């Protein structure tokens, strides 16, 4: 039998992936059990701590908690922008790191400067609007 060698890149990669999956599952369990909206140990947004204003991502942890408990409407209320940013982030990650021909074809569209700047404009717009009485 081949001895297990941690310096073997294939084994190391598998170890890192397993550790990542375990960490993600642990975090999901924590977010399902505890409400980050009331727990003082949940990480707080640096931007909100410093300025008092919501950042574009504020509410992500509460959204995750609500999603894990099946409270869909509450999840949407905490941060509806995640409905746009999470799929877009996944698309960008896929077209960047997946080696396939389809990913390469889609990269030009998904990561086109106009698309990226539109996303950025929406992000900044949401950032401003959520801190006005328009979003309450």
């Amino acid at each position, binding site marked *: 039998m081949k001895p297990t060698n941690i310096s073997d890149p294939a084994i190391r990669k598998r170890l890192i992936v397993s550790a990542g999956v375990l960490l993600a599952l642990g975090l999901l369990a924590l977010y399902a059990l505890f409400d980050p909206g009331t727990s*003082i*140990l949940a*990480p*707080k*947004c*640096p*931007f*909100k*701590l*410093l300025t008092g204003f919501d*950042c*574009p*991502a*504020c509410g*992500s942890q509460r959204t995750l908690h609500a999603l894990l408990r099946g409270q869909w409407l509450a999840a949407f209320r905490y941060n509806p922008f*995640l409905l746009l*940013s*999470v799929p*877009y*982030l996944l698309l*960008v*990650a896929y077209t*960047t*790191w997946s080696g396939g021909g389809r990913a390469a074809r889609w990269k030009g569209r998904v*990561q*086109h*400067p106009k698309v*990226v*700047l539109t*996303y*950025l404009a929406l*992000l*900044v717009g949401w950032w401003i609007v959520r801190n006005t009485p328009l979003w309450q």
Partner: protein
Amino acid sequence: MEEGTPACKPDSNLVWAILVTTLCCMPLGVVAIVKAASVDSLWAAGSYAEARKAAQDAGKWAAVSAICGLVIVLCYMLYMMTIIAIAALHA
């Protein structure tokens, strides 16, 4: 600077730029997104060195943003834990 078309376009670091902006909620990530978005057009225009520089800058701003966010969050958690410890000692 080098002549002709270099072998491959640099990774624009757009993934990290968007990740820090949407997860670490640091405004510095916006700078990273703008830098990353400029990589493709610079490359297409033949400004290879500038494109590489923009890609590097995007990565740098994303890293700075992530580190700032992490440091502030860790400081906050340390602060909360100290308060809890003090409260427990005086209880």
